[in-house]
């Protein structure tokens, strides 16, 4: 009962045969080998699986692969410009916004979406935005700092 699904992931047209119940995150990880997107829970709480679908941050564990038919999907692997880190990635490194790295792809993808939607977000706005992303390592202190800096850098026209 496989269904063929096709979409654009990180600028490349892809397709695959999936079960109807296959989640977008499973399609990315298991069919496309894009293991940068992580699975940290089974209740859509932790946000380790956040990717962009048609420009919006989405928990890829909450979307069936078939629902992304025809969509433009960007994962953490598609964020950097070649060797040059995206300004948000660079800010996470500069401000030590990651430790074990497991929540990081979802955090960065979520942060990029925030920075696109809210210019110069305040600490409070950042903390509120991150309610869908859980980190167990950093206490969020440096993530908040990184997102502030990353958002400012993105304003510099590098988004």
């Amino acid at each position, binding site marked *: 009962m496989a269904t063929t699904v096709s979409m654009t992931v990180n600028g490349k047209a892809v397709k695959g045969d999936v079960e109807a119940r296959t989640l977008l995150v499973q399609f990315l990880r298991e069919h496309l080998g894009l293991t940068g997107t992580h699975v940290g829970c089974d209740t859509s709480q932790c946000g380790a699986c956040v990717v962009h679908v048609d420009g919006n941050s989405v928990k890829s564990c909450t979307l069936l692969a078939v629902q992304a038919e025809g969509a433009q999907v960007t994962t953490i692997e598609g964020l950097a410009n070649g060797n040059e880190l995206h300004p948000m990635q660079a800010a996470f490194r500069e401000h*030590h916004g990651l430790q074990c790295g497991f929540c*990081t792809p979802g955090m960065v993808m979520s942060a990029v979406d925030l920075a696109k939607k809210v210019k110069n977000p305040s600490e409070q706005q950042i903390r509120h935005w991150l309610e869908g*992303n859980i980190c167990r390592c950093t206490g969020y202190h440096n993530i908040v700092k990184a997102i502030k800096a990353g958002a400012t850098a993105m304003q510099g026209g590098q988004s």
Partner: protein
Amino acid sequence: MSGDGIGAAVRRKEDARFLRGRGNYTDDINRPGQLYAYILRSPHAHADLGAIDTSKAKRAPGVVAVFTGADLAADNVGGLPCGWLIKNKDGSPMVEPPHPVLAQGRVRHVGDPVAVVIAESRNQAKDAAEQISVSYKELPAITDAAEAIKPGKPQLFEAAKNNLCYDWHIGEKDAVDAALKKAAHVTRIDIVNNRLVPNAMEPRSAIGEYDRGTGEYTLYTTSQNPHVIRLLMGAFVLHLPEHKLKVVAPDVGGGFGSKIYHYAEEAFVTWASAKVGKPVKWTAERSESFISDAQGRDHVTHAELALDKDGKFLALKVSTVANMGGYLSTFAPAIPTYLYATLLAGTYTTPAVYCEVKAVFTNTVPVDAYRGAGRPEATYVVERIVETAAREMKIDPAELRRRNYVPKNAYPYQTPVALQYDSGDYFTTLDMALKAADYAGFEKRRQEAAKHGKLRGIGLASYIEACGIAPSAVAGALGARAGLYETAEVRVHPTGSITMYTGTHSHGQGHETTFAQLISDRLGVPIEQIEVVHGDTSKIPFGMGTYGSRSLAVGGSALVKAMDKIVNKGKKIAAHLLEAAEADIEFKDGKFTVAGTDRSKAFGEIAFAAYVPHNYPIETVEPGLDETAFYDPKNFTFPSGTHVAEVEIDRDTGAVHVVGFAAADDFGRIINPLIVEGQVHGGLAQGIGQALCENTVYNDDGQLVTGSYMDYCMPRADNLPSFSVATNVTLCTHNPLGVKGCGEAGAIGAPAAIMNAVVNALAPLGVKDLAMPATPERVWRAIHGGQRQAAD
């Protein structure tokens, strides 16, 4: 020099892959022909196992095999071993019941593994598991440790009467009782240290693989200590020789203790890979982590502190019941004993301390070390009772602590509970924290808050911890069944770049950067030319892994020893090349120089000569530049500090907001301040989480009520403030780097600081105590009950 040495806030090397989604976590690994395991777990907390019918599941699509405990028993697979033996007060050994890989005859907690389906896909394995029929005869369950030791309660093991695992004690009971009798004031508290679920963001995962050609097994696993897993699994469970067993712990997404232990799934996938002839992968779903990862804390404690009329501590008496869960996890017995009771002197000169601990089996997930492991529990007892005493005796809490701190000139300081503190300065960290928190200005802020109808409180906690566990001989005498040294190999390549192999394991701590900084500092090699390798038993000589803030204190010391050997050998080679006496060769800034001259050889030239020994002292010096060192610590290290929390409570909702948190810590020498601050932040979040929102709740039937992120409250960004963190340095006196460790401090100090602040805020209403977590409901009830009491 490169500027990337000791003390530099070097940006982490490992971030390059993590930020691009190029990490390599266990579930990211796929082996050719790999099959998937799904574990059927007990839905009951306590039941006798009857027949298990797997016939339908075996015929389900894609299913390759279904195994139960009977299959493992038939193959002589052993139980999961316990790594620490505790003795009772009378010297007899603790009760150590079997801990089967798959349940044998009985299940003892919800989540106890009963059967495993191996299939071509995850979904096929999961679907087939629904076709397994298990006959359970349900038994009454017991989950509360303090209840479980009372007579007439459900019994988990025949050998453990009244569910008692051990009844242990430490200290001088008579001296403590005498002091309590004649004390001017005695403060008494009853407290519960709530059970926590560690919740590393990466769920556990394991892949077993068997090579028919070589007879070698490989286990990829989410572990903090792959060599220990190899040792325990090889020697006790699967009876495999270590040279045929390789354990790889690649990138690991957080541990906090929960990935120290040898788990059933690791043994199972390794065993099964040979049975089915293909690699077998298992990855936990989060709800499975909640019922299969070892949990933390869960103490019930009564404590009494004797003070003289000036507030000088005379004696501390503590009685604790510690929940072990349904089986003994790998290091469980050590946590409420040698990592807990030995810390009850805290930072104080209390001359007499006595503690007794009863460890108890219950129908809950096993409990073991979780970030801090015993030391947060000890700090919580000491700092809650000290703060309560201060309130009762109307002495400022900071002043009461000052009166009792170990004086600056008293080191080495022998406590009455076995430990000898080598260095510290609790006065300075207290002052730093008070200043950062503007302790002096609190009263004004309290009054300002009151104008807006808010209750504001401030609370302190001065903690001490024992890190870098060992010496091995001491740990062995106390019941450890393993050594606790560490290894390092420094392999200098012919062109002068370096690969360093460490037996510690990084799962967020940034070892690849910190260890590279140590090497760069000593050998003058840029950190870009240094690779730090961990987590692979086939590459690394040996290792005990990472927990108890030991990596830098023990692993870093091994690295220093290995680099000493490199430098010494380099001097011999340089002496030959420079035609000078070895004693005249100095090594500094990456150069071997003849003292008092400008004649020198760069480190890279020496490395090249070692591997291309054309002009070389070949008669006396072996070619090559590759040295290994083992380091056994001489004592524990003793990080310490003071944390100050300030909270504001909404009277109408009971919601507690952390409006300020200042931590001042002494970790000894700091190698990378950026990483150290990050470690403190993370620990604080876990400590504040325990105090304000995290709680593990079982109902009376033993069902885990808080079994997902919907019900178990993980601290999120909007629950936490930004932190003020600072460090004071007193050097560790017995390791070559002077380092103490920083990984656990936040989780140790924060719970007591927060709860002291909450109780401080509520005290005007007559509230004397509150149990963690201080949820809005509990606080609201306390506010309303407290007001009534105050009015009575």
